[in-house]
């Protein structure tokens, strides 16, 4: 992994971003509970600068948390640009139905299990990624557009083509947090990966964010 990353992002810049993420993810957690009754705990986020080519290995390493995992991935673009990735233990879709509480158990009973899980993973992924990215954007005074979320199962063709889509010549800022749903004992990983082309903008936005405090 690329350890000498100071030329891309200085320690000071990392500290500001860290602070922004603490606030943003904290706000996201609060709003998820207050507004849409999804109660999650997010760990203190961490930041790393990685070569995009290193991300597949990094993901594989982090996915060892669970024997089998599912991924929900979503691209976002605007001034701030990158991917949101949610890593969850496989077959958690059913348990997630409980936290969505749609009062439609019969509907779910009728559909094949694989379809239901996909449906729930997609919706929860879309909301969690949207909440965290949205709150970062709010602090940085910008907004982004999202692609529809994709559910990718590990050990599938989908996963290898997802991994192949990373351009190894690029560098990314990877923000990571472990989240846990309060109502059900499921935890997972949320990654927000900033594309290289957005790093310059991010640097400026960080300093603009700090201006009032200086």
């Amino acid at each position, binding site marked *: 992994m690329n350890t000498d990353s100071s030329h891309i992002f200085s320690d000071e810049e990392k500290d500001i971003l860290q602070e922004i993420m603490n606030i943003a993810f904290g706000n996201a957690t609060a*709003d998820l509970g207050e507004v849409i009754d999804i109660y999650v705990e997010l760990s203190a986020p961490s930041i790393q600068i990685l070569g995009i080519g290193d991300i597949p290995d990094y993901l594989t390493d982090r996915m060892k948390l669970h024997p089998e995992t599912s991924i929900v991935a979503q691209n976002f673009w605007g001034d701030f640009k990158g991917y949101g990735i949610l890593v969850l233990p496989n077959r958690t879709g059913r348990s997630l139905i409980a936290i969505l509480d749609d*009062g439609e158990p019969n509907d779910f009973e009728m559909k094949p299990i694989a379809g239901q899980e996909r449906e729930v993973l997609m919706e929860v992924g*879309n909301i969690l990624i949207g909440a965290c990215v949205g709150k970062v954007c*709010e602090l940085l*005074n910008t907004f982004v*557009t999202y692609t529809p979320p994709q559910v990718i199962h590990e050990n599938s063709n989908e996963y290898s083509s997802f991994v192949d889509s990373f351009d190894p010549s690029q560098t990314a800022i990877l923000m990571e947090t472990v989240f846990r749903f309060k109502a059900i004992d499921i935890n997972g990983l949320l990654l927000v990966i900033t594309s290289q082309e957005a790093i310059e903008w991010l640097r400026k936005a960080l300093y603009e964010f700090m201006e009032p405090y200086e």
Partner: protein
Amino acid sequence: MIFDQIFDMINIGIIIIDKELKVYKWNRWMEIHSKIPAEKITGFPLFSFFPDLNNPRFLRNFKSVLTFGNFAFFSQKLHQYLFPFQAANSLGSNFKYMRQSCTMGPLRDDNNVIRYAYIMVQDVTDIAAYEQKLLEMSIRDGLTGVYNRRYFETRLEEEFERHKRYTRPFSIIMQDIDHFKKVNDTYGHPCGDYILKAFASMIVSSIRKVDIFARYGGEEFCCLLPETRLDSAMKLAEFLRKKIERNIFIFNNTEIRITISQGIAELKTEMGAAEALLREADHALYEAKESGRNKVVKMKD
């Protein structure tokens, strides 16, 4: 002004709603398909015209869009449609309502504050109809029209998973038409094909809708019976055996009789994989064949 024209000319439904879910804009596409003129709905709550939208999923996504500024996606695969509009009769499909792919997103004012949410509605009935046709083709056996082996195996895996979660019983019947080669050799392949088709349709008309009947290969068929114990599966198999034995198939004025051998197995908790159940049924079928055919044999205890 130009954008106003595009708003009305575009071949996509566009709705803008405020934070109280009242309609702020309703474009011409929406007018045409909903048969509700803009002036009649503008300023009124969306739910008073479309009460079915007042459900937890729609509200959760709406709140999420207003709070986080993210997008919400209502794909036709998962939701089929948001607005119940009449579908054009696409490719002979019989969808009651237009299949829609919908997106909801935030609209901000000059100060970057979210004031409204938009919903875009795209008619994807044609795509859904193609998908449905492709899906049918991929899960059906071309000759007999019953499910194919791949679909059977997928459903078997799903039933196996369901059994692991809820320990619901299920059984399978493996069937083989006795001396089928002789039918082909004596009466020709068109007759053999006719027998396969007629046999399959007789079985389909004798089982429940929830049962999955598939052509497993050649003259071998398989029937998956959810919520069915071994003794009930035995009774059904015996009923089918007699029905086939008594039936006279007529092809080109020739009367043909066939018999079937069947092997039955019920899923047991100790079976680690769905294939184990298939193996048991296959062994039982082999025994039915070896012991004289036209028989039903169940798995060993």
